[in-house]
């Protein structure tokens, strides 16, 4: 049933998008697929001029590449990395109207049911990464922000450059640290304490247990391949069952529920009304352009320290 928003009603229910066969003869543009060797496939997010920000096409290319690797019986391990200077800068805030990738422009004005279904579908994309039956390794360098960080978090292993930058910014400073909660797989109150703003380096991410290994940037690729190589020795069916066990364990520990809370919150945020003094992405984008918005947001997100009172 068409809903007038570019997707079918049935897609609002959970489905694994690797189950389609659309990836055959796929024209890879914004994500490249290659075999490093018999057992290791590598996917390169390829929008370097946009810092590999996610738009609809890149999600599709990525899905097709994941699907392709999954259907290749020789492949045991999949590496995902970013072209250019960054792993990924999150959702593409400059996406044209009508794109599913947020921010969905308010002028599109979807019904609540439309928007809810869309958010649910978007969250389950990451669920499908977690549930992927082969071992996934995110090779992170440069910025790994927002949706890109959620994606990396959904992979099994993160190997990162020491100076990589993980974080979440949201549409405005009011979202700091909240939107990322369900997918921030530290499950540790200790790591959260005093961290309303969750921006950390690759080195710190490894110390906190968010990443598995941090190395200098020039050693990143070799280190990632080393991990892929050793993990490709594992029996593939046993890995699939073990991953299923881990994903099920995450559901039992509340991951399914937090996913739901996550997209509920996102749906609610679609209807946020900004006060005049608050930073409004859509208004700023209209008046000052995306660069102007980003500049203003950086200033609100890191306010200058209040001057100390004189004694």
């Amino acid at each position: 049933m068409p809903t007038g928003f570019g997707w079918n009603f049935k897609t609002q229910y959970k489905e694994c998008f690797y189950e389609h066969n659309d990836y055959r003869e796929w024209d890879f543009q914004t994500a490249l697929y290659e075999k490093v060797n018999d057992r290791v496939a590598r996917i390169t997010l390829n929008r370097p001029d946009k810092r590999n920000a996610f738009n609809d096409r890149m999600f599709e290319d990525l899905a097709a590449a994941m699907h392709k690797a999954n259907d290749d019986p020789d492949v045991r391990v999949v590496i995902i990395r970013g072209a250019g200077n960054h792993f990924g800068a999150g959702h593409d805030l400059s996406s044209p109207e009508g794109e599913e990738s947020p921010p969905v422009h308010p002028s599109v004005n979807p019904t609540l049911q439309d928007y809810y279904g869309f958010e649910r579908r978007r969250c389950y994309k990451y669920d499908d990464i977690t549930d992927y039956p082969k071992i996934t390794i995110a090779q992170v360098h440069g910025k790994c922000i927002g949706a890109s960080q959620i994606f990396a978090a959904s992979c099994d292993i993160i190997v990162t450059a020491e100076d990589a930058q993980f974080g979440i910014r949201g549409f405005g400073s009011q979202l700091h640290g909240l939107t990322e909660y369900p997918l921030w797989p530290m499950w540790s109150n200790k790591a959260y304490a005093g961290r309303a703003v969750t921006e950390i380096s690759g080195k710190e991410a490894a110390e906190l247990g968010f990443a598995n290994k941090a190395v200098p940037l020039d050693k990143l690729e070799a280190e990632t391949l080393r991990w892929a190589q050793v993990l490709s020795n594992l029996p593939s069916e046993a890995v699939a069952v073990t991953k299923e066990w881990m994903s099920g364990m995450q559901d039992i520990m509340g991951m399914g529920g937090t996913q739901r809370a996550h997209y509920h919150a996102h749906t609610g945020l679609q209807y946020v009304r900004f006060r005049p003094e608050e930073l409004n992405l859509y208004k700023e984008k209209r008046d000052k352009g995306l660069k102007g918005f980003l500049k203003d947001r950086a200033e609100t997100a890191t306010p200058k320290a209040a001057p100390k009172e004189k004694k």
Partner: protein
Amino acid sequence: MSTVLYEKKDGIGYITLNRPEELNAMNDEMLAELDELLPKVEMDLDVKVAVFRGAGKDFCAGQDLTGVKTYEVLSEPGEHLTIKKRMEAERRRNRRWEYIFNLAKPTIAQVHGHCLGTGCYLSMVCDITIAAEDAQFGDPLLRMGLLPHMPLWLYLVGIKRTRELLFTGCYIDGIEAEKIGLINKAVPRDDLEDEVNNMATGIALMNCDALAPAKDAVNSVMEARGLGAAWRFTNDMQLVMQQRTMLPEEFNFFSVREKKGLKAAIEERDAPFKKFCEER
């Protein structure tokens, strides 16, 4: 009792795994003796704290992999059993961990040397684990195509570290184990016994009647976080894992063991990971 020793002193019950020649690996006999001993320890009003430890150079190297009298610890391929039988076996395996986890007395694992596989699971289900700095923790089950089946991994060390340790099967020492929250404390090998006795004595000063409900309150939090369902889910996944197929080019622990013996099979199992784990 031969594979498990028991000694009671100053309100502390010492349970010693005693197959030092076999690195205290768990076989059917050891589990049967534990099954018999633990309810007695639990009911004994004179014992306030139970300490698990290993005789000889190791705490416990995990399952006895010889395949001889190990029905309770390991499902061997080619066993033609009904699903009901398999299910019962998997349930018993996990319910033993669940029972020790919920034992109505505080438990301390005193870990030195190897603490691998189910040995590591035993240390995880204890309330407190104190280890020697050079103790070796690890769970290499997946290398043999077996399901690493301890739900507490995810609760104790988080998702990313769980995946890393279970996928690579690498061992970590006591210091790293303390850092990531797998154990409470790592101390120099020579201080281990004193440290454990000190803590056990301290706990034994508590009101005995208060300790059991206090432990139960803590465990009920874990129950609320899903641990009860997790044990059961793990049974099912172990059952599923028994149906796996090994590809021809994949290392098959059981057939290599049959052809070349246990020692060669373990060496062949660990060889591809050795260099990686040393450099990790």
